[in-house]
């Protein structure tokens, strides 16, 4: 690989899932409903229907544009991309092209890959509508129009990635951005993210900045998982290197291939020559709309704190370790859970420890999201308060955490007086005195230098109290009493 340098660009499609309705119709933006129920006449292309722009979708698209450091246009307008396909009921997709400019042009993204900061340039980002979804059976196909008209953001990058790993790290970063900004759930399992990938290789000895040195671009359409993107890229790099090595690379035409997850390979679809002419032109039913400075500033001011910012804050304000902060921000829901714990008054380091170890661990074990987890931050606070008030030991705290979770009962129901910690000095002194009286020989050995027998005495106290003795007070009294003897 050192002989060659791969140049990789991405087209990342991500549905905006956080609007109530679709991008050009008033149908619900939720295609997981029963098939063909989240549908208005426009979504099925009925004659006489007209698009009406969803302002919230535009707002979120502009927010994404700002986060990517892209330039926003003076006017919002849309274009038609014309082609025939059963999942496209109008016979065209309302989208944005480069001329006039879309919601964002230019820009860059900084992301982390294997602990190293990388930067990719953004070509543009545009707002468009999703198509219907098709299901194919042996002799028939079905069309579900629930997805038709769902708002979709297409982010196009420059070919700045050099490996499948970088592309995947970028996609993970962008997923986090979309989630933290409240633009999308960005759930690949629901098909909310789809990618087109382009790959070419060039001789590593040549100047990368000069496009003349770049190789022939191969595009791969509709790769639907991040792992798929990485594997498709790595496969394609190997395939192209092989062509270089056996001297046939220059004969390879510019082409579109398909990533096949079954055979784990890319399969030839069509050459660039056969590419469709989409006959773009301005959508006449949507008058161009001037973006006011005030609105743009309002949107900019409303950008929520993203993952990196939160991480920085956790490290600087809460003095969490880089590692813990990293674990907390990986999922927005986890970060939100943690922040809620802190807001309720749980000490940040304690909260971080509980969330990263117990809460996330248990969620993973149960295969549920943290939002579905029975122990809410409020319940966790009950347990923390129990410890603080000396009602329970840290060992008991963990027991109650799991018990509460298992029995779906509030933690405080397990914190009765019966199993409260024994912190009463009189009571403990009485107990310790009788234990020491019964173990005279051990005291002798202790006095003669076998100091680790101290733990033996603590153990005896715990044994007699079934672990409920307050360990700090127990140690204090033991030290005093042993010194007396």
């Amino acid at each position: 690989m050192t002989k060659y340098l791969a140049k990789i660009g991405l087209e990342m499609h991500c549905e905006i899932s956080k609007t109530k309705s679709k991008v050009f119709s008033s149908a619900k933006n939720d295609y997981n409903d029963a098939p063909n129920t989240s549908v208005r006449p426009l979504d099925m292309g009925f004659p006489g229907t007209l698009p009406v722009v969803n302002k919230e979708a535009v707002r979120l698209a502009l927010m994404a544009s700002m986060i990517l450091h892209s330039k926003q246009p003076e006017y919002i307008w849309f274009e038609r991309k014309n082609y025939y396909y059963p999942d496209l009921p109008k016979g065209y997709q309302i989208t944005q092209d480069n001329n006039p400019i879309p919601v964002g042009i230019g820009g860059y993204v900084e992301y982390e890959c294997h602990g190293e900061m990388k930067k990719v340039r953004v070509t543009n980002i545009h707002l468009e509508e999703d198509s219907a979804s098709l299901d194919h059976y042996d002799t028939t196909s079905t069309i579900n129009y629930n997805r038709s008209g769902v708002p979709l953001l297409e982010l196009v990058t420059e070919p700045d990635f050099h490996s499948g790993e970088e592309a995947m790290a970028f996609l993970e970063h962008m997923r986090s951005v979309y989630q933290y900004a409240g633009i999308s759930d960005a759930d690949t399992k629901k098909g909310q993210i789809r990618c087109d990938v382009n790959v070419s290789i060039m001789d590593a000895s040549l100047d990368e900045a000069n496009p003349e040195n770049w190789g022939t671009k191969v595009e791969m359409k509709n790769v639907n998982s991040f792992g798929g993107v990485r594997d498709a890229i790595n496969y394609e790099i190997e395939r192209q290197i092989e062509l270089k090595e056996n001297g046939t690379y220059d004969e390879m035409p510019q082409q579109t291939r398909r990533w096949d997850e079954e055979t784990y390979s890319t399969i030839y679809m069509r050459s660039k020559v056969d590419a469709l002419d989409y006959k773009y032109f301005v959508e006449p039913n949507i008058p161009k709309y001037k973006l006011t400075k005030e609105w743009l500033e309002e949107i900019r001011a409303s950008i929520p704190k993203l993952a990196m910012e939160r991480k920085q804050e956790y490290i600087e304000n809460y003095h969490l370790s880089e590692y813990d902060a990293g674990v907390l921000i990986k999922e927005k829901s986890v970060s939100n859970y943690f922040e809620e714990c802190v807001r309720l008054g749980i000490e940040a380091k304690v909260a971080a420890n509980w969330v990263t170890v117990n809460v996330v661990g248990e969620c993973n074990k149960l295969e549920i999201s943290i939002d579905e987890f029975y122990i809410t931050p409020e319940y966790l606070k009950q347990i923390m308060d129990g410890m603080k008030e000396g009602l329970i030991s840290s060992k008991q705290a963990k027991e109650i955490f799991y018990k509460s979770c298992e029995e779906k009962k509030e933690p405080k129901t397990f914190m009765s007086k019966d199993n409260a910690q024994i912190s009463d000095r009189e009571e403990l002194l009485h107990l310790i005195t009788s234990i020491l009286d019964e173990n005279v020989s051990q005291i002798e050995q202790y006095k003669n230098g076998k100091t680790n027998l101290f733990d033996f005495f603590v153990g005896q106290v715990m044994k007699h109290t079934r672990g409920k003795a307050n360990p700090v007070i127990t140690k204090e009294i033991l030290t005093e009493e042993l010194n007396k003897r």
Partner: protein
Amino acid sequence: MLEKDILSIHDALVRGEVTSEELVREAIKRSHEVEESCNAFVTILDDQKGGEVTDNLLSGIPYGLKDNYSTKGILSTGSSNTLKDYVPFFSATSVLNLERAGAVLVNKTAMDEFGMGGTGTTCHTGVVTNPWDHTRMTAGSSAGSAAAVASGVYPYATGSDTGDSIRKPAAYCGIVGYKPTYGMISRYGLFAFASSLDHCGVLTRSVRDAAIVADEMKGIDPNDMTSWDSSYMHLKEACDKDLGKKKVCYIKEICDITRYPNATEELKSHLENFRKTIDKFKELGYQVDEVNINEKLLAAVPSVYVIISCAEATSNMSNLTGIVFGPRGEGENYIEMMKDHRTKGFSSLIKRRFVIGSYVLQKENQERYFRNAQRVRRLIVDEYKKLFESYDAVVLPVGSGPAKKLEGSTDILDDSTQILEEHLQIGNFGGFPSITIPDGFVNDLPVGINITCNCYEDELMFSIASKLEGTMNYKGQIAKEARHD
């Protein structure tokens, strides 16, 4: 009674001289007669009942809708085989507005397929003939509406106008045809032909009737982003007002007989008649000026129209695939099925226009044809806007004479008189309010004059049209061959 104007019919209804039920029965009976003589309808609503009579001038009075208006539960074909059995589940906004006024629909009128034609000969139900002379055409595309109103089936029918589809058939049938400023009447539910040029409008037998109907049809619509709030406009009242600078102009390059060395007798009479009408303006105290417009720009009008309308049409009608609605095509795969549906469904005229539309939108042609056409459209509109700085209106003769013979007619127009035939398209380029009223006879056949004003000057236009109408004897005329007594 149905031959009278709306105010007279309304008074008779209010006074109880006639009932709505009687009017509806009469209108249905006449519909069948006019269907027999002119082939004017796609659907006659034989079971329609009379409506309630209220204060609304349209209440209880029968009317017709062009068949490209979507009507809930009523066949709406756009006079195309692709939609020959299509029964929509929603009504156009303007239709709902008329319903709310209490208007009673009695039929759906035949039209050139999807409005793409100017002859009334390309309806899937056959040729519509002119009630004044059945060997002649009505012009189109609002052919059935023009024939029905001129025959006295009812006082008004709706039309749609993309090039001159209301205003030319109105002239050929001796009635009034009005297309308002773009966006005054919502296009939601009107089958799209060329979205940037499409207008809803109305055909009547008097200027005031056109104002009364448009007052009810218009209004801002949340389903049409190009619609605007015209609630401050009262068109009926404007008919009695004295508005504007009292200055109108006509364009020498269009009206001057010396520009047509091979003029037919019909053309000579028509232009002569136009000059007489101009004199009427002078009698009314208007200053009338002859103005000049760059001949090259005028000569470009038909090409600009063809390029833009065909481009938008080919995209707009891509929803007609037979997959969601319309007869399902046959074939092994979706491409064959769509092809089969469209091959069988569309007339050859439309197919030709689709080819033109696709051609001018292709990547390699788009700049040269489509984008240039958009630029020239702007230049032409600017010329008219300049005229509107000094003049209330541009007045011009409609067409090159009376209705043409059906025999030997083609959709291809005689080059020498092309600008006379096509200048009304400028009203669509600019979205200008434009009205045609009858201004005399040539060879016992009606001819018309057109008045076009600046955008949002519909009230001014009605005040001028109403005054001019008052100087002539053609208000309320019924086609002679079809006269009922």
